[in-house]
């Protein structure tokens, strides 16, 4: 014989409980379900999307007639229970009784009605059920006032606004949602609502609802009157306990239950918003679902105990991103970590007690809310990560920095493979569709199938989609990061990172301040990407580039003034000779790049020597830089009997255009006036070999540790076009090569064909490259010697103090 179970109230808690119960033991109980509303269970949390029109009622029904029929539930919908006869174990509605072996009270809560005149007028509603919702859906073009700026009230206000009503929110407190938000976040929320045309009246106490037959306006204590065809009271709820009180069950604020959800009568149970458990009442859905699980077990005579967990709040107003959990009131011993970005409307606040998170408030960007909430629930000791905590899980360095996090943050349309125009979304889709090796990915999307420099990023996107299924993670550029050079360049571009600290922060650097390997690389990538905005960081440069001279083994320096195209004058030579004598230069040497090197200069003499050389019209030769070094030339047609073009003149033109530019590695040019090639142009990074018909441009030579002969890039009869192509290929190299790759090395990776396509065949692209080079040169075509030998800079080259003198005193 089955036991008789009667349930009063078909809400979300009792609905979930019945699912558990009937799922675990379909044949133990005959269930009778009373509900005052004339329908079964639906997802009340989803009333707001119904109100705003984003969902229909049908979409939010959780248990339909078929479900109740399939589970043999005797539904008494539209029948309100009026009395419980505990002695005889029968409940009564106005149309009859139902005996029970076990009774579950799930009457939920009732909206609180503030006792003001006019509260009974037609047009005054609460926000509790579908009837209320339907009344509010019918407010297009009308005036509506919502009393109460809490979670429910704001969802009502936003929903009616979306339906086309003119909405005013009247809120008693100083800021909206004061139980979940602090004033700063409440302010951002108010701004967002006001942008949607909702009027917000804080510190507004309702005095009366005005109107004769129906609501017409709301009068406040401060005298303000807000017109209102509809008034929604959403000032709070209280547990619905009338039946329990009448039955003389123990009731405090709610119906008192023990850990097993049993009331003071062993045959009567309760759950949901109507109960009080250990002094606490509940309004959010998560603990109610926990109660449902516990009660189902209790009814089956299984042990179970309800333990309330901290729950978080999210506001279901599309476009208002808000998260709140825990306790965030000011209290002694509590500390805050706050992140504000008012321009983007982002606010995050963590409340700490000792090394534990006790409260989280987020507005505008709540992506990390669940993570913080987890730390709070678990009572995690956040001491070790406190300095980065606010930035969320993606930026927790040390233990397990996650390079995939930055990739995860990219939007689907972000371009990953530049050669083939493949976006992150395309790669994700292909991975989901079965491409789980790099080769398969290349075959089906062409991502990383051309120059291959995006391989690391492609693998990371695949890892994002597939988890651990992808192997061969890319090598990091140094031990400070798992990102490769190529990835970093792309991420700097894609994420708009404009400083070294920003890169390190956003991309999860594992060290503080990087190292001597990554800092110069990042400095270069940033200045190449953002020539006008980024300010060169001298402290991230190798000594030679920082001091604009080459350090020697004894700590002295060598100084090389520029000689344009290797051409000098008696006056320049005199100035160099004078400087060599004045500063006691131990060696004067002619370099391989057609200029003169002054070796053994003391650091404190550098700015003085530079000033002297500047005065004679000379600038830094940048003999120390990852940048344009020399343009070596032969004498060409002007003097040479076999010269075909003005190679010296072209060399000088190129050097005057390109000096001061920074490149991934050193950049040496040569211009020879005929194929005899006296300027050795065919072992330079970029060379020109003149012929009778014009100019042969060659690239990719080297004569250092690696000896390489150049390969032909282009030929042109026009000197102007030759210059344009050289500037364009230089810029292409600047924008794409890995730091410390010479042109030949870069060319080996991307292929000569790709370079040709960019700068020779594609005229439009060539022009754009030249233009970008020129923009960068507008900043960098200036003499560092002049900048660093001013009266204010000069003293910085000398020792800070000389204690040998003090010792003598």
């Amino acid at each position, binding site marked *: 014989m089955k036991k008789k179970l009667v349930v009063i109230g078909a809400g979300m808690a009792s609905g979930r409980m019945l699912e558990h119960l009937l799922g675990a033991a379909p044949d133990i109980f005959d269930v009778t379900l009373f509900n005052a509303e004339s329908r079964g269970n639906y997802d009340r949390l989803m009333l707001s999307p119904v109100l705003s029109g984003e969902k229909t009622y049908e979409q939010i029904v959780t248990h339909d007639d078929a479900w109740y029929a399939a589970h043999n539930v005797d539904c008494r919908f539209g029948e309100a229970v009026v009395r419980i006869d505990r002695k005889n174990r029968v409940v009564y509605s106005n149309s009859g009784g139902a005996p029970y072996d076990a009774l579950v009270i799930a009457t939920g809560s009732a909206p609180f009605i503030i006792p003001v005149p006019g509260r009974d007028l037609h047009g005054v509603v609460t926000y509790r059920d579908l009837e209320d919702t339907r009344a509010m859906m019918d407010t297009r073009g009308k005036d509506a006032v919502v009393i109460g700026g809490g979670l429910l009230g704001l969802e009502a206000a936003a929903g009616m606004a979306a339906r086309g009503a003119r909405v005013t929110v009247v809120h008693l407190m100083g800021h909206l949602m004061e139980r979940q938000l602090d004033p700063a976040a409440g302010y951002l929320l108010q701004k967002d609502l006001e942008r949607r045309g909702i009027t917000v009246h804080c510190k507004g106490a309702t005095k009366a609802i005005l109107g004769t037959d129906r609501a017409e306006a709301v009068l406040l204590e401060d005298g303000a009157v807000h017109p209102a065809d509809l008034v929604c009271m959403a000032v709070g709820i209280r547990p619905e306990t009338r039946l329990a009180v009448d039955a003389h069950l123990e009731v405090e604020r709610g119906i008192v239950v023990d850990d097993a959800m049993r009331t003071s009568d062993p045959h009567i149970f309760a759950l949901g918003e109507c109960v009080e458990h250990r002094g606490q009442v509940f309004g959010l859905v998560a603990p109610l679902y926990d109660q449902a699980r516990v009660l189902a077990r209790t009814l089956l005579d299984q042990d179970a105990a309800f333990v309330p967990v901290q729950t978080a709040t999210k506001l279901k107003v599309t476009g208002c991103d808000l998260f709140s959990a825990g306790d965030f009131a000011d209290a002694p011993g509590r500390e805050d970590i706050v992140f504000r970005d008012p321009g983007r409307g982002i606010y995050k606040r963590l409340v700490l007690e000792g090394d534990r998170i006790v409260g989280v408030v987020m507005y505008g960007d709540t992506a990390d809310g669940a993570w913080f909430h987890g730390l709070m629930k678990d009572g995690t000791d956040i001491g070790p990560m406190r300095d980065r905590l606010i930035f969320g899980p993606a930026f927790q360095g040390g233990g397990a920095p996650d390079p995939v996090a930055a990739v995860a943050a990219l939007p689907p349309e972000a371009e990953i493979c530049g050669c083939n125009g493949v976006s992150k979304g395309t790669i994700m889709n292909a991975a989901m569709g079965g491409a789980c090796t790099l080769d398969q990915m290349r075959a089906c999307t062409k991502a990383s199938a051309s120059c291959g420099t995006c391989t690391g990023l492609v693998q990371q996107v695949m890892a994002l989609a597939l988890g651990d299924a992808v192997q061969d993670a890319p090598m990091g550029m140094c031990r400070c990061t798992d990102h490769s050079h190529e990835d970093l360049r792309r991420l700097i571009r894609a994420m708009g990172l404009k400083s070294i600290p920003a890169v390190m922060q956003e991309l999860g650097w594992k060290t503080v*301040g990087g190292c*001597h390997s990554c800092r110069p690389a990042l400095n270069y990538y940033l200045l190449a990407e953002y020539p006008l905005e980024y300010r060169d960081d001298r402290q991230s440069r190798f000594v030679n580039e920082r*001091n604009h001279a080459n350090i020697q083994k*004894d700590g002295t320096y060598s100084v090389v003034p520029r000689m344009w195209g290797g051409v000098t004058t008696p006056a320049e030579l005199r100035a160099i000779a004078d400087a060599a004598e004045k500063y006691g230069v131990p060696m004067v040497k002619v370099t391989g790049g057609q200029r003169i090197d002054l070796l053994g200069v003391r650091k404190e003499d550098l700015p003085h020597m530079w000033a002297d050389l500047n005065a004679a019209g000379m600038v830094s030769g940048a003999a120390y830089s990852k940048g344009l070094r020399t343009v070596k030339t032969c004498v060409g047609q002007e003097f040479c009997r076999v010269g075909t073009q003005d190679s010296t003149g072209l060399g000088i033109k190129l050097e005057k255009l390109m000096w001061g530019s920074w490149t991934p590695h050193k950049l040496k040019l040569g211009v020879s006036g005929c194929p005899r090639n006296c300027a050795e142009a065919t072992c330079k990074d970029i060379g020109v070999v003149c012929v009778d018909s014009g100019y042969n441009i060659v690239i990719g030579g080297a004569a250092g540790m690696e000896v390489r002969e150049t390969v032909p890039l282009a030929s042109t009869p026009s000197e102007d076009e030759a210059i344009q192509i050289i500037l364009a290929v230089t810029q292409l190299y600047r924008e794409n090569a890995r730091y410390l790759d010479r042109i030949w090395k870069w060319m080996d990776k991307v292929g000569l064909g790709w370079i040709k396509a960019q700068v020779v065949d594609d005229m439009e692209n060539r022009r754009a490259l030249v233009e970008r080079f020129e923009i960068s040169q507008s900043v960098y075509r200036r003499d560092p010697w002049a900048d660093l030998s001013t009266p204010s800079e000069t003293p910085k080259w000398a*020792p*800070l*103090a*000389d*204690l040998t003198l*003090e010792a003598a005193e």
Partner: protein
Amino acid sequence: MTIFVDIGSLDDVPAQGARVVRTAQGCVAVFRTADDRVFALEDRCSHKGGPLSEGIVHGTFVTCPLHNWVFDMNTGQAQGADEGRVRTFAAKVQEGRILIEATLLRRSAA
């Protein structure tokens, strides 16, 4: 108790940079980190005598400009596979001034 001597303003040393102080015991490199802490080390790499004051400062480490040896400025100890140590001296910032230990005024380290 360590006695300190004022050698200049914190502003005289660039963040993530260094300046040299000449002392009777040789040149001392005074470093300033990104978070405005100061360290004083012998300005001579234990490897080939390179001027550490010209190295790249990262965190509390400095990389020698000649052959990329890395030293922990807290201890003067070479990092990684390299073995060696440079002398360190007490240094601190007080009201925007840099102070280093006064023993550097003496001719010998004794």
